[in-house]
């Protein structure tokens, strides 16, 4: 790799590290695992840098790698393992009334199967269309639609259950 290419990669890495890490965190809820998966995604981009650097959106390539790594990583791991947000160790304190509700909702997202979680992150955080998500995950558009629908249904059920439990507890 030429010196200029090396510098290109380093600049790209520094500029995009934070964004990729945040996506990883939304996918995993685990600070360390997010670091690991983000580094793996960048490492793969590095090894393919000759090709990646010529792409219109190199960050999208790294994100694709990250999402697919995360899905396969979770698939390989124990099926009984449920990730939880380790946010208290990493978040910056600040007054935000909506944060507790957001954390509770995202904790529910983390209970979804890996592919459903990936679809939710890409749809609502990365703001991708369903066809873009299909491309990103390498699955059919119909599969994206059914996966998103199942994820929303599961979340709605879980949130309703939580509300009912909360109401009963407060009565």
């Amino acid at each position, binding site marked *: *790799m030429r010196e200029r290419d*090396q510098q290109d*990669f*380093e600049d790209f*890495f*520094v500029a995009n*590290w*934070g964004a990729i*890490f*945040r*996506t990883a*965190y*939304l996918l995993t809820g685990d*600070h*360390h695992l997010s*670091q*690991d998966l983000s*580094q*793996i995604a*960048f*490492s*793969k981009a*590095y*090894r*393919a840098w000759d*090709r990646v650097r010529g792409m219109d959106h190199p960050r999208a*390539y790294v994100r*694709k*790698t990250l999402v*697919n790594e995360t899905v396969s990583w979770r698939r*390989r*791991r*124990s099926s009984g*393992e449920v990730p939880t*947000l380790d*946010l208290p160790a*990493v*978040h*910056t304190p600040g007054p*935000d009334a*909506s*944060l507790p*509700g*957001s*954390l509770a*909702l*995202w904790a529910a*997202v983390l209970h979804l199967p890996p592919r459903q979680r990936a679809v*939710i*992150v890409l*749809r*609502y*955080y990365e703001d991708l269309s369903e066809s873009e998500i299909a*491309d990103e*995950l*390498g699955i059919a558009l119909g599969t994206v639609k059914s996966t998103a629908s199942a994820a*929303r249904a599961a*979340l*709605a059920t879980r*949130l309703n259950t939580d509300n009912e439990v909360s109401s009963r507890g407060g009565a």
Partner: protein
Amino acid sequence: MDLDQRLRDAARDVAEYVVAPAPATEAVQRRVRRARNVRLLAAAAAVAGCVGVAVGIGQLVGPEQRTPQPAGPDVVDLVWSDGTALHVRGDVVHVERELDVPIFGLTRVRGGVVFSTDPHRGQVYFRPDTGGDLVRLGRHTQAAPVGDPDSGIVAWFEARQGQGSLVVYDVSAGEELGRADVDVALRPEDNIIFFGYTPVLSVSEGEVYFAQNKEVWVYRWASDAGPESTGATPARLVDVANGVRAERSKGKLTFVRPDGSVVTPAEAGSYEGVMRSELNATGSLFATARGQVFSGHPAVVNTATGASVALDVSSAGDVPGDVWQVSWVDDATVALLYLDNRDATDTDVSFTATLVACDVVTGACSAQTLPGDGFLVTIPGN
């Protein structure tokens, strides 16, 4: 508020409140330097073509001539990791039964293999050649261990509460031989992005050579003294084994023998690389992937005479990609790890890993392509 909007808000809130760690720029720089040399090798190998056979074998191994073998060593005999499991001569060994615990660094010691898990778990394990349960040797390690294949001695770095330590352990005796405070700042992400990275250069004959503050230091654990600087830089001192030093000086590769004699391989006059190179345990042979100066092939060099032999990887068939690791299996066998991602697509970024075993006497090689994504595959390093 509908669920779609709540999800959008929640994703934004959680993402905004997560503090990303600083990018491991130094680790990337190291990786860039290392891979730059591999790219040079690949380019040179392509120019040189896939020709060349074992020449000068007699010079390498001495007067005894052997009959050339039709095939290289059995690849099944190699030890390797797919990133989450250890493969030892057909056995698949997991750290934990239920979880895929990442394996990042492998090394050989007499009687088995020592490896480290991911830096977050930071554990060091010994797997005896005789099989049986894994033996945990240490915790808090932040880099790949390095062992001495002639003994049961292995060294690794630990980091606890901001304090770095170099630990020397004897697997045979089951005891720690030495521990020295070191000023080596290792971050977990360094190891993640630079798989198997370690500042330890070598372990042998009562000495551990390691990089610290841009110099190579030596720790003689039997003495009361702490680590001492050798005055050499990591870029200059390529490897040390049994008193033999492989050095790079002014672009030339030289071997400094224990008696002070200096040997310069004729074919390595413009040697630039410091990576993908390893002395064997006795210091008598040096394996290198620097093909552009050794007939376009990975090669083995006799450190006493400077004579070199090209490893005829083409004898194993078409092996795609670049050499990523070079490793001595024993004094007659070198293992090479090739990684290739030419067939990767935007959604499939997997790598093809091919293990190659070469007989340094006959120059013949055998190869085996591994199934699945080979990105995390590693073979033992010294």
